[in-house]
Structure formats: C-alpha cells, structure tokens
C-alpha cells in the first residue's frame, strides 16, 4: 500500500525512527548506532561547555548536523522560562527552529508538567519555533497542544527510560483518530516489539534513546528498531485481519482423503 511521506513542519524525512544521543558509552558508539538505525533526526541537549577541558570531544564532531537533522530538546527544564531560554540558545548555535519541548514536572517519574508544556508551546510557536511536544497520553491535552500550534504530538509510552512499552494503547488510538499532526511515541519503549506496536497503532514515528543506548549491543538494537518501525508501519498500512475467538483453517477441506 502506498505510504505518504513522513513530514514534520513541511519537511520530509526518510526514517520514521528518531533516536536520542544520550547515555552512549562514547560519541563513536552513538554515531554508529545512528547509522545502523537509519534515523535522519536525532535529539540533542544544550549544556554548558567544559571550559577547563578545551580539547574534549564534541557531539558535533561525530554527528554532522549537515547530514542529520538535530532536534534540540529542553531536557532538565521544569518551567516555560527555562525551556524557552534553552531553545533560544539552541537556535543561536546554528539556527535550529524545529525543537523538542520537554517540560518535566517530577524528578522521579519524569512525567511532563502539562500546564507549563502548554504555555511553552504557545510562547515558542509565537517566536517562530516549530515545536514537537513531549506530552502525556491524554487526548484532551493533545488537542489543546494542537490548538496551540504544536507541529507534532509526542506522547509517552511509559516513563522516560523505563523500557515498559506502551501502557495505554487506548489513549494512543484515540489521539491517533483525533489528530492529523504527526503522532510520535516518545519515551518508555524497551525493545523492538514495542516500536512495532506503536507503529501498528498508527503512529507516524517513534523516538527512542535508552532502549538503544543501554542495550547490551546498541548497534544491533538500533538496527532492530529500524526494522521494527518499518515492519510496524507496513503492517498498519496493510490492514490487519479481524481478530476472532475461533479458528479458521488455512487449508481447504475440498478434496480431503
């Protein structure tokens, strides 16, 4: 079946898998995992430069922002002001306007603070940012984000880094039905089958960091995620059979001996 292009804020992307660049053992491992994943968007964070170690390697030395789209995030921000400050700085580094907004409300479960998230989405959109929003899996909040100018809705599957997989498929399905915006599962996936399920639910993409970076073999897991996303998308587009409680033989009884 024909698949439409994966488009975010009027830009086409080849891969429906977005990967994070945190938690790898080295920049080299991170770069190899990105290559294996086939991703053309990666999330990055803004932090202070270490001024006492001037020769320390930088992410940008390993992952070329001319070849891979950088998606700056607001990790570690707990209010709109911090998030906006962070993304203004990110924009200043190299003109990035497509950003991932993530305003947290709790240090333990890392759930999004949705009131601040909503406020930040409005303010950033007014400033010309294209805001992809990490959010909870509440369809009503997702609608409000959409009305506030978000360019992508990115509900969590489960707490960030938990690896629990999608906990509330019903809500994800409802959000899928109500929005035409790109719907991307962000956070909480643990293995390839989780990514597959997300795509079979009709999501446009998935964003994965920990499940790849902390796997025993991150490069192989990156590749597994790539195929899971492709397979899940094709499965969704192919139109699954209706589930039945009873069996239906695959072999005809005609001509039975």
């Amino acid at each position: 079946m024909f698949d439409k292009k994966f488009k975010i804020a009027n830009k086409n992307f080849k891969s429906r898998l977005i990967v994070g660049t945190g938690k790898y053992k080295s920049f080299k491992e991170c770069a190899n995992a990105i290559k294996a994943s086939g991703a053309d968007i990666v999330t990055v964070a803004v932090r202070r430069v270490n001024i006492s170690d001037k020769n320390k390697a930088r992410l940008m030395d390993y992952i070329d922002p001319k070849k891979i789209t950088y998606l700056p995030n607001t990790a570690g921000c707990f209010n709109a002001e911090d998030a906006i400050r962070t993304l203004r700085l990110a924009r200043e580094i190299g003109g990035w306007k497509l950003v991932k907004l993530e305003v947290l409300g709790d240090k333990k479960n890392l759930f999004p603070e949705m009131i601040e998230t909503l406020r930040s989405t409005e303010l950033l959109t007014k400033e010309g940012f294209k805001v992809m929003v990490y959010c909870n899996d509440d369809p009503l909040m997702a609608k409000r984000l959409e009305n506030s100018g978000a360019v992508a809705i990115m509900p969590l599957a489960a707490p960030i880094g938990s690896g629990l997989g999608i906990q509330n498929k019903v809500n994800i399905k409802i959000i899928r039905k109500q929005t035409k915006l790109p719907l991307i599962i962000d956070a909480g996936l643990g293995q390839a089958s989780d990514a597959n399920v997300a795509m079979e639910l009709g999501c446009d993409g998935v964003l994965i960091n920990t499940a790849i970076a902390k796997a025993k073999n991150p490069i192989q897991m990156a590749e597994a995620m790539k195929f899971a996303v492709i397979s899940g998308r094709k499965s969704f587009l192919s139109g699954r059979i209706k589930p039945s409680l009873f069996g239906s033989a695959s072999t005809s009884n005609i001509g039975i001996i």
Partner: protein
Amino acid sequence: MNIKNKIKITVNGKQMQIIPKFTLKSLITKLKMPLNKIAIELNKKIIDKNRISKIQLKKGDKIEIVHFIGGG
C-alpha cells in the same frame, strides 16, 4: 599588569580574572571555543556571535557558553 586592575567575571559558573577592556571575542579565543558550535549568553541575554568583538566585559559579568551534548 597590577593584580588590582584585574576584573572578576564568571564563566559557566567559574570565576575568572581578566584585564580591563577585554572583549567577549578575546575570551572565546582564549578558551579556544569553536564559534560555530556554541551559543553565548551575557548576563542572561543571548549575544549575537557577530558582535562579540565589540563587547567589552565588565566587573561581575556572568557569561554562559553552551553547546550540544547527547540527549533524548
């Protein structure tokens, strides 16, 4: 240079001493920071990187220099 003439500033949370009329550009050069990979804030205001040679640092200035690191 007499030490009394030195000016105290804070860069990324660390105290530094500079000579009077030291520009933001001189600071970036001294720290060997690649301009195309960083963003600079001076007293919480983002600085246009094209203007750093025109900005002289003053006593108590707080400078933040940031870059991209790995993140999810």
